[in-house]
């Protein structure tokens, strides 16, 4: 968030709306209207004095009205931009008697009551719609007493209550009486999976979100006795989600109750709630009580707003108000007008990893219209300050308005700092981060030949980059800057003990001065980037990634091991849910690939990779070496082999869903030339099983629904044995409903009681226990279809893991950099992953993720060089004992055992791979490894100053 606000190539327009879009793809003119903020964005430092002075309190939208805010406010503490907003509708200046308290409170005259709306046009090549989604408000229908019973609230309201910076500071209370609840009940699918209220679709994120909130509930309030979750199907489909679900199931105080309550009534006296549900053990109705009910509201767009925007942009929305994709399997991120792309919840509810991957994907697609309009990096020529002499430290102490000065005696802190060793300049400023104060720092550096700068202000996590840039611009090495956090971790948290806070601030400044004197200038290494890419794997995901990169003007080589492209898609009949012919789908994708100009090498295997980010050499068995700046792994996944399960491989009539798909592709579904009367599907074969694949395979429920419908069309009866129907993907829930209408029978089996196949050599029937009737269901069937899960290609993955140095997770699939914020990157810089190689997923998500990988790769390839953070570790060969500890512990494979001559070996750290955590330095027995910027000497100098009172 902070990064977006600071990036020179991103112009952020808040309080703004798009009101017009003219022109053609590559050459649009967008008209934007900005509403007045009444606060000067450039001047406001976010100190909050205006807000303190404001006499008006109104409900806070950010806290869904649970808390209050002033008429001049910042929505939440880390808001970007960090400027206040005047809500003129609630401001007293609107009336005859001018209040003006905020204007008077502002030291820098940032408040402008005469601000006005502005309209302007922007030349754009393409548009990304990332408008997100609203949530369904159960208000309209008064569902489950929401809006009537005070102790029924929505998930988002609960989320704010759980948040430590929320309206209750993280305390869970019953709105009716402020008491901590004993029993909390979550009800899932509010406004989702329902034709009567809200939408028919699955809202994707709510199941796990409730599980998360349930877990957090006990963290926040250990006195809560029980949290129940009332659900239809538990859709823990994402990577690691099923494991998370199992974790919550293991908590004795979390109860999962299948089925939505029929109604909820309130005990008017206690204001407790009575939930009418079904007892799963007996199948009889029962009443459960709860003193707080949370309705897990579905994601739902504000249809008025989205249809309005759709009209402006010239694109389409569906009946719910979500934006419509051009084609949902392989063109999900494209809107119905050229040059306009969709990502995140704008096209339907998504969880965070999928949203993030789609965002990168939309970026890749949008960038192809601007391939010739990339902005050149400006080369600077700044003379460097000589830092070889003794330290000359300048200390700048910030008042932060009254944020610091209200608690700490800033003047005294400055005076004390002036007496410290090596300190030659000290001053205090009202806001050290203001542009004015930053210029002063630059002047002082020149004037007093300062070669180390310390800012005693707020947190380095947000402000260090700003100060580093400031001193860099006058030629002082940015790593000679040190920050002391006397606000977030001092004045703010010790406001009631100003004297002791003063002592802490004094010590922390002294420690920083000691460290500062020992800081060393560090130079960021620049690596040349070869602007080409290699995509490994020629399935639809790999084809898509290669196409999207090539269309952006980067040379791409697509390497496929087998002789034909298309991967798994070539085995499909039609896609779900729109029943698009798979062959046509492939041909279209192939056509696009051909036109993109990507080079395709089929029948080629990758046998080795050398080099690192920006300059890899990919070695192949038949086509020699391919040089590339980035590599995308799109090698897909294997299909679980169910041999031995449900008689597969022994009993005739037991086939996998892939085999059925092949038959469907041929046309008729037959068994030894005889027609099939009744078919049964068994779900979760090789999925959600800690022994085989711990996670959900994501594609199989929807596929089963699609195949069941296809069988029904051929007049075949269908029974589906499932654990949870996870038809979460786009329109899959609607198909599920259609299947039920078409007469497909769905029978739930328990995790620990799998269905049994009847019949010796040939299948004749199937039986399974189901809780719904607390009995065994038995049916005569002549075909059993196993919905098999996706599993890693064992050998290929092991080999690639070794070659690429990308770790696989506990599920065997390749590990992404961050499960949410880095779904297509890996821990090895320059190597990206997409599709099923990262984890099982359906076609839509695979292909969208492939675009995402292309988008991420482009962020690397579009730059001539890549800068490496110099705060890495380095080994001194003289001290290295070649014990192998660092090589063994580093997950980034940065240290490597190298020959250093004379038959000797030592560890060497590859700076391009090192992330600078310094763990190897701590584990090195001899001290051979130096963690730059966090050296032993720097750390121990701080300890000595604090504990011994001097640097001795």
């Amino acid at each position, binding site marked *: 968030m902070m990064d977006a606000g600071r990036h020179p190539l991103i112009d952020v327009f808040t309080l703004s709306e798009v009101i017009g879009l003219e022109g053609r793809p590559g050459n649009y003119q967008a008209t934007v209207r900005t509403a007045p903020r009444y606060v000067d964005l450039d001047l406001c430092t976010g100190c909050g004095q205006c807000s303190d002075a404001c006499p008006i309190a109104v409900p806070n939208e950010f806290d869904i009205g649970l808390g209050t805010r002033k008429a001049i406010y910042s929505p939440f503490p880390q808001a970007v931009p960090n400027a206040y907003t005047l809500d003129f509708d609630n401001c007293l200046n609107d009336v005859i008697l001018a209040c003006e308290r905020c204007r008077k409170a502002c030291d820098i005259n940032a408040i402008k009551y005469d601000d006005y709306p502005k309209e302007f046009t922007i030349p754009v090549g393409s548009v990304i719609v990332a408008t997100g989604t609203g949530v369904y408000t159960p208000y309209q229908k008064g569902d489950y007493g929401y809006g009537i019973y005070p102790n029924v609230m929505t998930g988002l309201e609960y989320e704010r209550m759980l948040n430590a910076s929320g309206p209750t500071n993280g305390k869970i209370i019953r709105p009716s009486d402020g008491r901590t609840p004993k029993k909390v009940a979550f009800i899932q699918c509010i406004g989702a999976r329902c034709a009567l209220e809200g939408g028919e679709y699955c809202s994707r994120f709510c199941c796990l979100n409730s599980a998360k909130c349930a877990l957090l509930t006990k963290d926040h309030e250990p006195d809560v006795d029980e949290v129940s979750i009332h659900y239809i199907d538990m859709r823990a489909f994402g990577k690691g989600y099923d494991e998370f679900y199992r974790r919550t199931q293991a908590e004795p105080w979390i109860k999962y109750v299948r089925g939505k309550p029929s109604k909820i009534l309130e005990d008017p006296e206690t204001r407790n709630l009575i939930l009418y549900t079904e007892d799963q053990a007996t199948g009889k109705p029962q009443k459960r009580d709860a003193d707080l009910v949370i309705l897990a509201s579905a994601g739902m767009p504000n249809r008025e707003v989205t249809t309005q925007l759709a009209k402006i942009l010239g694109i389409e929305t569906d009946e719910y108000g979500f934006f419509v994709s051009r084609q949902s399997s392989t063109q999900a991120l494209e809107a119905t007008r050229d040059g306009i792309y969709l990502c995140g919840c704008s096209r339907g509810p998504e969880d965070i990893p999928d949203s993030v991957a789609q965002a990168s994907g939309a970026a890749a697609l949008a960038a192809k219209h601007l391939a010739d309009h990339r902005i050149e990096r400006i080369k600077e020529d700044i003379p460097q300050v000589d830092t070889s002499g003794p330290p000359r430290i300048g200390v700048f102490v910030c008042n932060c308005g009254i944020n610091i000065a209200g608690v700490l005696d800033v003047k005294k802190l400055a005076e004390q700092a002036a007496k410290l060793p090596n300190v030659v300049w000290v001053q205090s400023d009202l806001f050290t981060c203001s542009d004015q104060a930053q210029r002063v720092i630059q002047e002082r550096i020149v004037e007093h030949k300062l070669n180390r700068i310390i800012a005693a202000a707020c947190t380095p996590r947000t402000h260090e980059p700003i100060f580093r840039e400031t001193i860099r611009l006058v030629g002082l090495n940015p790593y000679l800057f040190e920050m002391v956090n006397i606000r977030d971790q001092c004045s703010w948290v010790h406001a009631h003990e100003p004297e002791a806070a003063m002592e802490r601030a004094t010590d922390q400044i002294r420690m920083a001065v000691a460290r500062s004197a020992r800081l060393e200038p560090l130079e960021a290494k620049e690596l040349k980037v070869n602007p080409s890419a290699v995509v490994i794997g020629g399935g639809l995901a790999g084809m898509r990634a290669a196409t999207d990169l090539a269309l952006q003007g980067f040379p791409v080589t697509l390497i496929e091991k087998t002789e034909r492209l298309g991967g798994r898609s070539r085995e499909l009949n039609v896609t779900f849910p729109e029943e698009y012919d798979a062959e046509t789908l492939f041909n279209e994708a192939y056509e696009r690939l051909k036109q993109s100009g990507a080079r395709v090498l089929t029948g080629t295997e990758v046998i080795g990779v050398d080099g690192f980010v920006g300059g890899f050499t990919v070695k192949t068995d038949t086509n020699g070496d391919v040089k590339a700046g980035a590599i995308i792994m799109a090698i897909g996944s294997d299909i679980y082999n169910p041999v031995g399960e449900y008689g597969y491989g022994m009993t005739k009539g037991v086939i996998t869903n892939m085999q059925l798909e092949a038959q469907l592709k041929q046309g008729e579904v037959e068994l030894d030339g005889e027609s099939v009367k009744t078919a049964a599907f068994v779900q979760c074969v090789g999925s959600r099983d800690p022994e085989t694949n711990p996670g959900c395979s994501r594609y199989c429920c929807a596929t089963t629904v699609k195949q069941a419908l296809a069988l029904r069309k051929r007049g075949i009866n269908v029974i589906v044995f499932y654990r949870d129907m996870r038809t979460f993907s786009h329109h899959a829930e609607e198909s599920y409903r259609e299947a039920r209408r078409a007469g497909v029978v769905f029978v739930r089996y328990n995790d620990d009681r799998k269905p049994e196949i009847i019949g010796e050599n040939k299948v004749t029937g199937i039986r399974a226990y189901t809780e719904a009737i607390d009995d065994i269901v038995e049916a005569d069937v002549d075909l059993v279809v196993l919905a098999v899960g996706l599993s890693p290609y064992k050998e290929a993955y092991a080999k690639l893991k070794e070659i690429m140095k990308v770790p696989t997770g506990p599920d065997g699939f390749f590990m992404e950099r961050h499960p949410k914020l880095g779904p297509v990157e890996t821990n090895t810089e320059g190597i990206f992953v997409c599709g099923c190689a990262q984890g099982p997923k359906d076609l839509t998500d695979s292909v969208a993720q492939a675009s995402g990988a292309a988008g991420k790769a482009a962020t690397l390839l579009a730059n001539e060089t890549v800068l490496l953070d110099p705060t890495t570790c380095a080994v001194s060969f003289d001290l290295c004992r070649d014990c192998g500890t660092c090589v063994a512990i580093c997950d980034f494979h940065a240290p490597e055992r190298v020959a250093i001559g004379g038959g000797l070996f030592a560890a060497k750290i590859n700076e391009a791979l090192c992330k600078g955590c310094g763990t190897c330095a*701590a584990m090195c027995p001899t*001290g051979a490894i130096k963690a730059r910027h966090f050296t032993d000497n720097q750390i121990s100098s701080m300890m000595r100053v604090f504990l011994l009172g001097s640097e001795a």
Partner: protein
Amino acid sequence: MAEATFQKTLSLTNAFRCLECGKCTAVCPISRYNGTYSPRRIVGRLISENPANVALDPNVWTCLTCGLCNARCPSDVKYSAMTKVLRREAFRLHNDPSCSHGGALQAMMRIHATSNQPQDRMGWVTGDLKIAEKGEWGYFVGCLPYFDALFSDLESNTLAIAKSVVKVLNVLGIEPVVMKDERCCGHDLLWGGDIENFKLLAERNVKMIRATGVKKVLTACPECYRTLAVDYPEVVGPLGFQMVYITELLADVSAQLEKKLGEIKKTVSFQDPCRLGRHMGIYDSPRRMINLIPGVQFNEMTKRGPGAICCGTSAWQNCDATSKRIQTDRLLGAYNVGAEMLVTSCPKCYVHFKCALQGESIPEDKKVEVKDLIVLLAEALNSK
């Protein structure tokens, strides 16, 4: 350092007699691998330069103080003694060595020197081990419990040495007095230049031992042995008890011990610890102990006895690539004479060799086992 004091040091260590023959550098195990280091050159500088300059040289910390140069010097220049003095000056001038394990061990020793907190170090004394409150014999354990804690990942089990000592003594009918608040002997601080903390440790330990009333104190650590026997009297005066190295006692009663030893079929070699051998002149008794064990084939390494090469690191400082090479050579030296096991009788040699066996420097098929002599003896007792 006052000039006069320093001149006196040079004179006492015979530095002025240096003939510049270079024998010291020729035999120095460090110089063998690190061409930039030369004891001869340092002696030369000490005679001609301001001692403070020399004390600020990082090479002050390079010497292993193994004493091989002293033994070869035709003029009897006491180089390691001189190094010890020079390091006091270096320490005072903030010329610090690079300490292994982030200085954890030095911190531990200094806490021992200054803290009044009682330790909790007797956990290793299991029920089968008999120790006494009073008696003739004391046993000075050393820092073994701490090594076990810090080097848990080496699986070194150094405490087996302490257990074995008590086991062997019990067999001989001795129930030693073990002090529950014994502190580090201070060897490493002494050789690291921190004389003040060394003195505190010496005073504390001597006071504590005297309070137990023991007449003789055994130790299985050559560093403790040298420090208590030789260095303590220099700072606290006559000890009032006698220091005995474990193998010296065992050699005296070998006839009694021999009957109780079972067979161990192993070809072994022996690493002479520098503190035990060259510093204290004990070469014979450990060898007699090895030869006492039935079934053991004892093959001497080529460099042994007074000419033995040190284990490569001392005082937990300046452990580096050279240290590793020395250790590797020693381990391969044992392998080359056909040994399956390298026996040493110093816990630190033992830890250093255990560490050197890690990684890929020595091929797996050439890695010998490393064992402490007393542990080997105790195993022989058990096997009967």
